[in-house]
């Protein structure tokens, strides 16, 4: 393996051998040569092609389904509906980045009595080829009774709104339920200080309302799921997923199987960003396989991905914020209403916790509402909930700074949350890099530069995300030649094979290239939570570190056998030299890692190091972004001229991948800011279910995004890691909004800030 040309390590990582360098990723060759096996690449002997019939309506009762004509078609081997699944209970299961009632998981996979969004699965077929499967679903007759669709979060919350679920009552944090059924699934509230007293103290108060559209993750690989149910009752599933164990633990109860009957093999994954955590096709493939006794593969096309997988919430938000003339923030009142889609479970909770997270504001109230509407069930999307809530709060803060005539970075520094600051949800920060990001932004060439020219403007915004821990598992054996295969439970979605292998290599004192990371199935490694929450390099890194420490201990013991001494007299050094006590002649005894590895077989056999961790700690991370835009006042089009992203990575294990995460997050954030939206007509038909009309930014829509990595090591991690993947999607929208206001003097109140929206706020204003 080749190591990429060296760039100097940062001041923070100079002390390391591997961490902070930029080795070529272990999975890179397979990906660039096309050898990597993605979900849809799987082909097994006798495999059937599946296809899903989807609802043309946003809200309707299913009166009847007649599958007889489809079943009679030559080449069709099975047709299933919700009725073919065992009845699911309302027990709550772990669904990765959240929990859900099992019956709602099933009903989202395949509708029971009602369809709740256009594209909702109604039936599925398995046939000998996909042409027959396509013909077969057109032969299924479904009779619908149309119901009024509920498409706007505020309409949904009104008393008397049509109900999606007759059995849904509004839950509160104290465990109580509303008297009447409602589309509002839950209300949460975080408070701190005395809100009224805070506003009484304020000398300037700004209140704004915002609306944001549903937005999709836009991963390039569509969803897929293959299954083979064997005669002995065991089930194999292959799928590109962010969490093989979550797939296992979702599918097993839906088919009333034990987890030990189900093995999930994670295929290579072509993007997920949170959207490849829920199950959609896997349970259907499993049941079709159970019915036919043959392996079944299901894949979605792009339209199905946009219609029927989980985008992030559209929202209505209202923020009132008060400050003193000197810029001290004294009070903030935040109202967040999030669309959950068809079933409860929007990311409003995380949005509420993040809303004011970068600031130490003494008096706060944050209300969050999780509301069902006739749109697809939302899923996690990169910092779920935070791009919306922080868009609202950062936007109001920018307007406060403008009103007060205070530099937007200065007002943030003045109010920045630092070590010891407590959020309204009760969390108290340890060592964080919030101010360090702001300082680095101020010192950046971008902020120091002058922006000139008409219709141009500059904006900044801050962002916060938690970066969680939880369960990760790993093991590694030591080969006789000193190489180390590392077996991981975390599916690799953003370069984590490399970042985990590097932490193992650093701990053992060997090179990244001497470690070979492997992602394996659920029977071949310990339980590991999803790749999500920016947790993998953090918690998976803990597991890699502890695996290496386990190897070090065992190698010390083995050296003690060779030297016939006590293991406590042997020391494994960070230079990968194992040192023992002096021999009888007084000579130093030492072995290199490689020398000792060569003697393992003859001194008791090979060794395996292993670790299972469950970290309840986290790696809070902040970001400061600066953007320059130019607005065409005649067309409303916004061009991004320059973009700088500053972010505290804790320790950047592989700086190139950290930079890639920062740039990718910005690209998605700019997409949400400018053009990405779920565009529905009044009947609830999604009119832009294609990547032509769902407008993600292309390479021609973005300048080179300049990353500046700040490293304030996380004291809660052996190498100081914080997560890096999510926080960079948060600041783009409020930063772009501020830049537009700076350019043309108009403060937008919605996302996306599309050319149409900007024209309607300017020359076409009514």
């Amino acid at each position, binding site marked *: 393996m080749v190591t990429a040309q060296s760039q100097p390590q940062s001041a923070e990582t100079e002390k390391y051998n591997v961490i902070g360098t930029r080795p070529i990723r272990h999975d890179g060759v397979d990906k660039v040569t096309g050898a990597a096996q993605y979900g849809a690449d799987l082909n097994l002997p006798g495999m059937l092609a599946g296809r899903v019939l989807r609802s043309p309506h946003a809200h309707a009762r299913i009166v009847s389904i007649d599958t007889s004509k489809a079943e009679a078609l030559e080449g069709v081997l099975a047709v299933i509906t919700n009725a073919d699944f065992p009845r699911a209970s309302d027990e709550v299961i772990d669904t990765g980045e959240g929990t859900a009632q099992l019956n709602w998981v099933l009903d989202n996979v395949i509708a029971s009595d009602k369809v709740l969004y256009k594209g909702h699965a109604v039936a599925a077929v398995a046939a000998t080829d996909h042409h027959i499967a396509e013909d077969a679903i057109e032969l299924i007759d479904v009779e619908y009774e149309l119901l009024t669709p509920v498409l706007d979060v505020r309409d949904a919350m009104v008393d008397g709104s049509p109900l999606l679920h007759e059995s849904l009552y509004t839950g509160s944090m104290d465990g109580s339920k509303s008297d009447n059924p409602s589309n509002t699934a839950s209300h949460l509230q975080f408070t701190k200080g005395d809100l009224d007293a805070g506003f009484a103290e304020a000398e300037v108060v700004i209140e704004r309302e915002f609306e944001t559209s549903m937005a999709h993750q836009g991963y390039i690989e569509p969803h897929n799921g293959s299954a083979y149910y064997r005669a002995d009752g065991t089930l194999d599933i292959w799928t590109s997923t962010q969490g093989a164990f979550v797939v296992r633990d979702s599918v097993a109860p839906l088919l009333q199987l034990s987890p030990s009957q189900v093995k999930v093999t994670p295929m290579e994954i072509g993007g997920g960003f949170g959207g490849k955590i829920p199950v959609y096709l896997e349970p259907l493939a499993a049941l079709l396989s159970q019915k036919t006794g043959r392996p079944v593969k299901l894949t979605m096309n792009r339209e199905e991905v946009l219609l029927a997988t989980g985008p992030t919430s559209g929202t209505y938000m209202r923020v009132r914020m008060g400050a003193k003339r000197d810029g001290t923030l004294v009070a903030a009142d935040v109202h967040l209403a999030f669309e959950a889609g068809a079933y409860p479970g929007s990311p409003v909770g995380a949005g509420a916790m993040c809303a004011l997270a970068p600031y130490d504001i003494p008096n706060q109230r944050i209300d969050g509402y999780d509301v069902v509407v006739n749109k697809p069930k939302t899923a996690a999307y990169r910092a779920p909930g935070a791009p919306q809530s922080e868009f609202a709060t950062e936007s109001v803060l920018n307007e406060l700074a403008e009103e007060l005539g205070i530099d937007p970075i200065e007002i943030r520094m003045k109010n920045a949350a630092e070590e010891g600051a407590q959020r309204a949800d009760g969390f108290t920060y340890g060592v964080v890099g919030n101010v360090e990001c702001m300082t680095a932004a101020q010192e950046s060439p971008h902020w120091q530069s002058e922006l000139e020219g008409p219709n141009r403007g500059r904006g900044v915004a801050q962002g916060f995300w938690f970066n969680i821990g939880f369960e990760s598992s790993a093991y590694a054996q030591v080969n006789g030649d000193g190489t180390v295969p590392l077996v991981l439970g975390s599916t690799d979605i953003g370069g984590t094979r490399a970042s985990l292998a590097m932490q193992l290599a650093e701990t053992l004192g060997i090179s990244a290239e001497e470690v070979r990371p492997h992602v394996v199935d659920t029977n071949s490694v310990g339980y590991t939570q999803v790749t999500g929450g920016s947790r993998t390099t953090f918690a998976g890194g803990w597991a890699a570190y502890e695996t290496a420490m386990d190897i070090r201990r065992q190698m010390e013991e083995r050296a003690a056998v060779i030297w016939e001494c006590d293991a406590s007299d042997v020391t494994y050094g960070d230079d990968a030299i194992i040192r023992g006590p002096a021999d009888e002649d007084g000579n130093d005894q030492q072995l290199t890692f490689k020398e000792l590895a060569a003697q393992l077989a003859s001194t008791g056999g090979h060794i395996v190091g292993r670790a299972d961790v469950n970290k309840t700690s986290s790696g809070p991370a902040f970001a400061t972004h600066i953007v320059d835009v130019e607005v065409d006042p005649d067309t409303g089009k916004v061009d991004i001229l320059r973009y700088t992203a500053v972010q505290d990575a804790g320790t950047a294990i592989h700086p190139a991948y950290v930079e890639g995460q920062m740039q990718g997050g910005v690209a998605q954030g700019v997409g949400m800011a400018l053009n990405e939206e779920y565009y529905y007509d009044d009947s609830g038909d999604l009119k832009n279910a294609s990547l*032509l009309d769902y407008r993600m930014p292309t390479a021609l829509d973005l300048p080179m995004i300049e990353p500046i990595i700040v490293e304030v090591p996380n004291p809660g991690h052996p190498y100081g890691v914080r997560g890096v993947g999510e926080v960079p999607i948060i600041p783009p929208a409020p930063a772009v909004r501020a830049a537009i206001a700076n350019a043309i003097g108009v403060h937008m109140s919605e996302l996306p800030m599309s*050319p*149409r929206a900007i*024209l309607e706020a300017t020359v076409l204003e009514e």
Partner: protein
Amino acid sequence: MQAVKYARAGSVEEAVSLLQDGGDTARPLAGGTDVIVQARERTRDINLFVDIKHIPELISIEYSADSGLTIGAATPCYQLYGDSTISELYPALVDSTSLIGGTAIQGRASLGGNLCNSSPAADGIPSLIVLEAQVEIAGPNGRRTVAVEDFCTSPGRNVLGDGEFVVKLHFPAPAEGSGARFLRFIPRNEMDIAVANAATQVRLAADGTVTWARVSVGAIAPTPLLVSDAADALVGQPLSEETIAAAAAASSAAANPITDMRGSIRQRVHLAGVLTERTIRQAAERAA
């Protein structure tokens, strides 16, 4: 996509015969960038593709000062914008063909196909209209010619009858003092469909008087429009802020758009004017 039949026509006559035999579900296949997608997504019922791009006259570029420019209807975009005569004399065709799709699409997509797909938002058609293209059609009754502005009849529909297909596009040689420009507005910078588009050709006398003009606007009505009121506002006097504004207002007045996921009625009416103004100014620069 279902199993389909494919026939490769060696001559115009063979293609006509194949299309006639195939009936409603037979379609000519040139670059296929629209029809193959439509067949696969089952938005158009197609049982027979008649491949016309191996007929020599369908892929051809000929120019003479007397007879003007003739291009085969299936000539791919990249050959058009790569042709030095077209670049020099018909830059509006380069404007259109270099932004339809992306590089890969431009390797197959053709102006004839863009015309026959008859989308209101087609990026080729406004340029064809202001360049006074004549459409040569072959069919069971021989050949006929239609002015391009009369070709499209409604979204996805045109004047082609059973067994007919477009063979060639003819353009007059550009007169002295002519300049033409095509622009479209999309929310991004690439790979998109016009919210609105426009083309203008003007002819300027030595004293700067506009002696002739054509303005066409697309994606703002069921078919791309030839806006004669916009041209009338320009002809007979030198270009001025007033005449340009009047032409832009004429385009906005002619617009009869819909609201959809790509743009609203008000946005499109407004953009029809903005793009008319911009294409007039830039066409005049090319004329000078």
